[in-house]
């Protein structure tokens, strides 16, 4: 399929998922009323509040988080040249989660919490990169370091849970599973800040192409791989940190979406990045709708849905993919 057609198709998918999400939700509303509220924003009333103040902001949050996590996955996979790399497997989300759990138990929210998340993400990336540069780690050793870091961070979280009061723990556990139902204060502003950053990654599409060929080829084609990697990893950590602060740990988006998009749009990051961002946005929006619809009136954490849907989808994909199509 032609690349432009793929992007158009994914754009259609994302827009369709927005429509689905606007017409469904935890609180039922007849489609006719939803439509009326959408067509007349000034009408107000229960339907207006529901659509404009609850559903739409939630769709925007889901879309931004989904697109950002997918973009980060693409960046990590290109830089580490490993199909398993993503914020979750590299321990970046885990570091962020540790920061967030500490923030929750300290009663912090909003920006201070995001700052702790970012600090946690940077800590993991710093350890992984420090190991890479100081000890000349191979890429698989890097992934291993990330996986082990994840375990250490989750043990640290467990430790905190086992000494904290049970009420705080319940809140923190629910949040850890990843949910878009109650983003902390200031989330909108933080997401508005990282969206341009995530979109800006597309300016580095050609650098990512080269980095995915390895350091030596990058070098001979004139790219300063070290500088480009540091810059891109810093941006990806910042984006991941904000996503974790806003919505907890949402697994698999950074892994499944880039692989799926690579299958459709190819490995060229000029297409792969926008394709992944569109697919990631649509996927998380749909999963979030699903999380509200499965056992109404209860709401599942969306991380549970992405974990199950994404995991099953990924296994099916791997079973069907030809080896040369996977990095």
């Amino acid at each position, binding site marked *: 399929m032609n690349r432009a057609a793929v992007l158009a198709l994914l754009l259609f998918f994302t827009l369709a998922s927005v429509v689905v999400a606007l017409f469904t939700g935890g609180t039922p509303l007849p489609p006719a009323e939803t439509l009326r509220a959408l067509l007349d924003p000034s009408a107000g009333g229960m339907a207006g509040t529901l659509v404009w103040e609850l559903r739409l902001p939630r769709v925007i949050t889901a879309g931004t988080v989904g697109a950002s996590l997918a973009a980060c996955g693409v960046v990590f996979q290109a830089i580490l040249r490993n199909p398993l790399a993503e914020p979750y497997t590299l321990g970046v989300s885990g570091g962020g989660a540790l920061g967030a759990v500490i923030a929750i138990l300290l009663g912090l929210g909003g920006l201070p919490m995001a700052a702790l998340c970012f600090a946690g993400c940077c800590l993991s990336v710093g350890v992984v990169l420090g190991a890479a540069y100081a000890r000349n780690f191979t890429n698989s050793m890097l992934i291993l370091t990330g996986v082990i870091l994840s375990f250490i961070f989750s043990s640290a979280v467990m430790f905190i849970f086992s000494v904290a009061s049970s009420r705080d723990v319940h809140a923190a556990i629910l949040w850890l599973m990843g949910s878009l139902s109650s983003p902390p204060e200031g989330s909108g502003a933080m997401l508005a800040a990282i969206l341009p950053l995530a979109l800006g990654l597309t300016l580095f599409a050609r650098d990512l192409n080269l980095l995915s*060929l390895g350091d*030596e080829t990058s070098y001979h084609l*004139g790219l300063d791989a070290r500088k480009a990697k540091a810059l891109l990893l810093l941006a990806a950590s910042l984006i991941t940190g904000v996503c974790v602060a806003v919505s907890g740990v949402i697994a698999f988006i950074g892994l499944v979406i880039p692989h799926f998009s690579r299958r459709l749009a190819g490995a060229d990051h000029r297409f792969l990045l926008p394709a992944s961002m569109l697919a990631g946005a649509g996927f998380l929006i749909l999963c979030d709708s699903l999380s509200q619809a499965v056992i109404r009136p209860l709401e599942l954490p969306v991380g549970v849905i992405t974990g199950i849907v994404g995991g099953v989808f990924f296994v099916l994909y791997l079973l069907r993919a030809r080896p040369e199509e*996977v990095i």
Partner: protein
Amino acid sequence: MDVLRAEGITLGYGKTPVLRDVTFGVPGGSVFGIIGPNGAGKTTLFKALSRLVKPWKGTVSYRGADVWGIPRRQFARKVAVIPQFRSVPPPFTVSEFVSMGRYPHAGRLSRQGREDERVVAEAMELLDVAGFGHKLVSSLSGGEMQRVFLAQGLAQSPELILMDEPTAHLDIGQKIRALDLMKSLSRGGRLTTLVILHDLNLAGMYCDRLIMMHRGVIHAEGTPEEVLTGKHIAEVYGMPVRVGLDAATSKPHIFFLPQG
């Protein structure tokens, strides 16, 4: 004037020098060959020449300027490097992969222009990979992949191309076509080629000048007739050979003499 010049290069790994005081010049528009047995220091020399590893002592200069004083990107616009071992790339198509050769010429915000497309199409045509431009590089055979790597190098529109054993994965027909191509580009004066070759007969046929490396130093230097002598080959490779002259090309041809 020499396009590339090595002046007293000493370089090694750890504390052991692999190269000792290597000096030579590559004349513009020539095909320049480096030969020698395994472990002679050819690939280490290649790393120094391609500005990948800084020599302990001595300098490498490109058109009179120290290569370490030339910014990397600018160097990549003039010099293409095709290393011997490359991992199988991610699932890029052949044309995407060859297009990456334009990287050092492109600005961050600029799109690939007409000129870029023309250069890429020409490189793909020259290496006969245009027919499968939409195929994934990772799905190609070793020989096809090697041609795609070479096409990416040509897409840099280099003045100098450095190749470490570029014909290793090619069959004899592909070897001859690839070397013919390098020779014809050099003859046009557009390109200078420096190439490490294992096959002494191919080196004699295609190179204007040769250096024969042995244990980290240049053992012999000159035209193929001067370098490819029975004496030199016996000294460096430790085996007797008979060297004849090809009647048609009057280039040296080496006949191997199996023992026992």
